[in-house]
């Protein structure tokens, strides 16, 4: 047990977490939560100072999974980095591929055939469905609903991963998208199978909702916990479902209209209170919207090539310049910033990781809450450490 002096902590500026004063009774307790704890979703540590059960200081500690992804990418060709982007957010490898391919296409000014755009949207939305199913499952696991909801999420995810495997050859490390299109063309049988799986999914969401929404324990633990005000969320660069749970209407699929998202009819669900409950509900509502997009995309998908025939794969050297490309990944805004000096390798390769930047306000959300809620709040942010530490 350590006694710490919180007075030496200086907080300047209007947007930094306010210092929470201890009530003056008893000693303060410093707890190191993680790095090897199931609730931290990977190797992640938080230095928490407690006054009784109340959190008065929380500092996240990173770097346990750091392998300098960006430096490694600077040492190899543009193409060779694609399989490596799979390992960033290893739950959603296809959206990582997509964001990187989009940034390189911006850098080199490449076009993507229409069919490839449809395939990308289908795979991107399937990735979002399985990520959200898993995120909700893990959140309930953290809450003490041991196993059952998580296994429901896993059950649906497994069917989607089987789809990925038939198309790309791998369940999780898909390595599928290329600059100017996609690697292989999905067959008619594959599309038919995808349609069947998508048609079954709304039933799963209904079942999930029926089991969980009215649950008294869930409501008692999540409502009013870890509130994130919208102005702070925008200022702290929070993106994705966490930002929209605070009521900020900012979805890159609507804002940037990248790819062909302007052709689909879907809504952006928004939260009202910005607490853990809203973040949980937002994911279920986004699941339904993703299924709507999937239905439309699977219906309208045209024929044609899946790869731009003019696209250069070997000896790919974009002209000097730079580009920042971003997409709405399931966890938030995933961006890639590339600087080319005309050589075969990128001069600078930067990943804008949504998981890391969403953790900026973790301390603000946890201050004054009970230590048991820290696990819940972290679970509602939905992080993957492969992306946080890179």
């Amino acid at each position: 047990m350590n006694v710490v002096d919180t007075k030496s902590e200086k907080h300047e500026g209007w947007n930094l977490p306010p210092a929470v004063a201890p009530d003056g009774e008893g000693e303060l307790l410093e707890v190191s939560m993680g790095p090897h704890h199931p609730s931290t979703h990977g190797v992640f540590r938080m230095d928490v100072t407690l006054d009784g059960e109340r959190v008065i200081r929380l500092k996240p500690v990173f770097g346990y999974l750091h392998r300098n992804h960006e430096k490694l990418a600077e040492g190899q060709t543009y193409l060779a980095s694609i399989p490596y982007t799979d390992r960033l957010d290893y739950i959603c490898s296809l959206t990582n591929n997509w964001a990187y391919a989009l940034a390189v296409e911006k850098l080199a000014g490449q076009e993507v055939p229409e069919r490839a755009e449809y395939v990308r949207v289908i795979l991107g939305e399937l990735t979002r469905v399985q990520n959200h199913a898993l995120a909700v499952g893990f959140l309930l696991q953290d809450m003490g609903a041991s196993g059952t909801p998580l296994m429901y999420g896993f059950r649906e995810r497994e069917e989607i991963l089987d789809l990925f495997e038939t198309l790309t050859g791998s369940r999780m490390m898909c390595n599928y998208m290329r600059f100017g299109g996609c690697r292989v063309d999905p067959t008619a049988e594959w599309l038919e199978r995808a349609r069947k799986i998508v048609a079954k999914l709304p039933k799963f969401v209904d079942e999930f909702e029926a089991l969980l929404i009215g649950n008294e324990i869930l409501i008692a633990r999540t409502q009013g916990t870890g509130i994130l005000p919208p102005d702070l969320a925008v200022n702290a660069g929070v993106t994705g479902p966490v930002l929209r749970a605070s009521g900020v209407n900012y979805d890159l699929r609507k804002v940037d209209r990248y790819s062909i998202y302007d052709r689909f009819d879907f809504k952006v669900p928004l939260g009202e209170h910005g607490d853990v409950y809203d973040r949980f509900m937002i994911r279920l509502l986004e699941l339904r919207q993703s299924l709507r997009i999937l239905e439309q995309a699977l219906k309208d998908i045209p024929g044609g090539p899946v790869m731009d025939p003019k696209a250069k794969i070997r000896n790919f050297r974009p002209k000097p310049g730079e580009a920042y490309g971003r997409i709405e990944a399931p966890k938030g805004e995933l961006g890639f910033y590339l600087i080319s000096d005309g050589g075969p390798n990128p001069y600078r390769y930067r990943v804008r990781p949504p998981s890391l930047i969403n953790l900026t306000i973790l301390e603000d959300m946890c201050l004054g809450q009970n230590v048991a809620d820290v696990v819940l709040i972290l679970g509602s942010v939905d992080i993957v450490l492969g992306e946080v530490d890179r």
Partner: protein
Amino acid sequence: MKTVEEIKAAIEAAVPGAGVEIVLNPGPAAQHSLRLAPESALAVATFLRDDADLALDHLSNVTGVDWPDKEIAEKVKVTRTVAKTVDGVEQQVEETVEETRKRVEPGCLEVVYHLFSVAKKHGPVVLRMRTENRSDRVELPSMTHIWRSADFQEREIFDLYGVVFKGHPDLRRLLMWDEFKDHPMRKDYVEPDDYEYEPTPHDHVLARAQEHQKKIEAAGNKE
């Protein structure tokens, strides 16, 4: 969305003597950027965030870039007078010789900010700042008090590039451990000699093993 020229004009009207430069991007993406002078950067950033037309409230991405010292070799024609013996008589003759001259263009560390607007739904506006050199004058103002999202990203750049952000509330290494000395993302970073034993080393692993062995022997002989 305003163009870079219009944004530059707006900044210069609001912050006199801001010293903003336009950096053109020759690539097809055409995301041009504005280079700020570090002295006036905070005032400019506050203006960009609070201005009603721009409302750049979302600092999405902060990137460090390393530009090492560049040695540029140039061929220069030089005319000089040389003493020469022509037909048995010593004369001063002018002669033009081509010479290769080398000059070193000093490097710097650069920080790039990508700004978007959540309220107006436009962007990106790209800002850049440069340090004076790469060794001792590496201070830049921190944007954390204007956009909170710079917090961890500036810590990462401090860690991996060694840019010191003045005014950052908690400037510590983010990814590497505290005792680590170097900055691994710099272009001239040398990896430590951390060869591990392999039962049947071959190719580059063998070469590294032999090099490692030589170093150990040299160190042993000294003692």
